[in-house]
């Protein structure tokens, strides 16, 4: 009996070591292929996990709703929510009006005016946060089966939230604009200077590569420039709070306070990127008039 047991133990150890070696070799020699296998086979696993995830998120939202609505002063909570919604709408309207004014002024001088088509938006609910501590992401309850694809932009009426990085059949992972690994092409609304918006480790954002001669100042609004796929031009990203100009640097940078508080997002809109003109389309030669 003891001999048999020893053999079983030895076999288990051998199997574990062989499996580990195979995985390590795969990781080192065929990382791309193994990655796509794991991602592809992960579809059904993700679909299975999305059920308890949605259930737990639903229970969590209900408890949070009961707590927020009844325990923590119902009237004030409702009023506050209403005012915040109105404020977000007004901010959005204000941003759109500013952008329209600037665009009208600029485009009036051009011979050809090409109106940007409004993209189709998919509404989704936030059901969770990143499972680890290395990335700032949210999980939404719409996925590949709803037409959501990686690299699509995600917004709220107040402004940009982030970008889709991963999808399962019924969920999608959105990398927030405040994550240091995210980069979105931005534009200072007043001066029309372009740059790249990156997240910071402090949970804020930073506009990099602003030209040295730019007259940007704190209080200026930064919007999407429309130069990368996923976001049309003119969506609010944040407001400049500080300008950093280093000596002998080729560019200046600015610290931004994002328009959207990533910790309080409940619903988002995903922009279907197929309807947003890509960089290639925008930069291509205009079609001759008939």
């Amino acid at each position, binding site marked *: 009996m003891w001999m048999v*047991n*020893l053999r*079983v*133990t030895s076999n*288990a*150890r051998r*199997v*574990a*070591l062989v*499996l*580990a070696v195979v*995985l*390590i070799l795969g*990781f080192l020699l065929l*990382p791309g292929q*193994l*990655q796509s296998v*794991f*991602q592809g086979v*992960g579809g059904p*696993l*993700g679909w*299975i*996990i999305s059920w*308890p*995830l949605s*259930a*737990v*998120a639903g229970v*969590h939202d209900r408890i949070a709703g009961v707590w927020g609505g009844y325990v923590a002063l119902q009237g004030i909570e409702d009023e506050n929510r209403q005012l915040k919604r109105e404020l977000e709408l007004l901010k959005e309207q204000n941003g759109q009006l500013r952008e329209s004014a600037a665009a009208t002024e600029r485009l009036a001088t051009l011979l050809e005016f090409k109106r940007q088509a409004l993209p189709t938006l998919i509404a989704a609910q936030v*059901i*969770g*946060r*990143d*499972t*680890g*501590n*290395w*990335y700032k*992401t949210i*999980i939404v309850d719409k996925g590949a089966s709803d037409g959501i694809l990686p690299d699509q932009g995600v917004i709220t009426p107040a402004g940009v939230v982030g970008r889709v*990085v*991963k999808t*399962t059949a019924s*969920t999608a*992972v959105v*990398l927030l604009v405040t*994550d*240091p*690994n995210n980069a979105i092409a931005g534009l200072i609304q007043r001066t029309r200077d372009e740059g790249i918006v*990156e997240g*910071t*480790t402090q949970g804020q954002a930073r506009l990099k590569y602003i030209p040295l001669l730019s007259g940007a100042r704190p209080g200026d609004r930064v919007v999407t420039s429309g130069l990368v796929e996923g976001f049309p031009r003119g969506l609010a990203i944040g407001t400049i709070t500080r300008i950093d100009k280093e000596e002998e640097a080729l560019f200046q940078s600015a610290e931004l306070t994002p328009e959207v508080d990533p910790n309080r997002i409940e619903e988002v809109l995903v922009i279907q990127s197929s309807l947003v003109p890509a960089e290639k389309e925008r930069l291509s030669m205009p079609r001759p008039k008939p």
Partner: protein
Amino acid sequence: MKALLYSVVIVGIVPVQSVLLPHLTLWGVKPDFGVVAVCLIGLINGELDGLLVGVAVGWALSLFSAQDVLTGAMLKGGLGLVAGLAGRQMVYLSPLVLVLGLLVVSCLVGLVTPVVLKLSPQQDLWWAIWNVALPQACLDAVIGGAIYWLMWSQFNIEQLMSESRM
């Protein structure tokens, strides 16, 4: 029974980690139940279980994170394997030793992860140690120690460990 328990761990860890644990943070960092579960399974049930459950847990967790799937599966699988091999060398494991072991292991995983993931230059090693690895290791150690202490006081862990090794 064991398969059912593992399935519950693999499927249940994502909702716990993404919905419930954001409320249980230390300086904005939440514990990694994946590390705790994989270490305990590896220690108690051996390296094969540790490896397989580790790969599955890492895979499931990375499907709902920006982290790439392969790295997540490999890190957790490796952790389960190492925990299993370490458990084989131990005759008696007190909760205090487990807490210290988890603290060290979680810290090491926290140091390796940003290097493997090739994060933004802002998230350098120094930042990773102070802002993620250490707080997460403390939380993992406390939670893992508490779970192990509960199991230790309710079941005969030594017997479970020796049975799994046979």
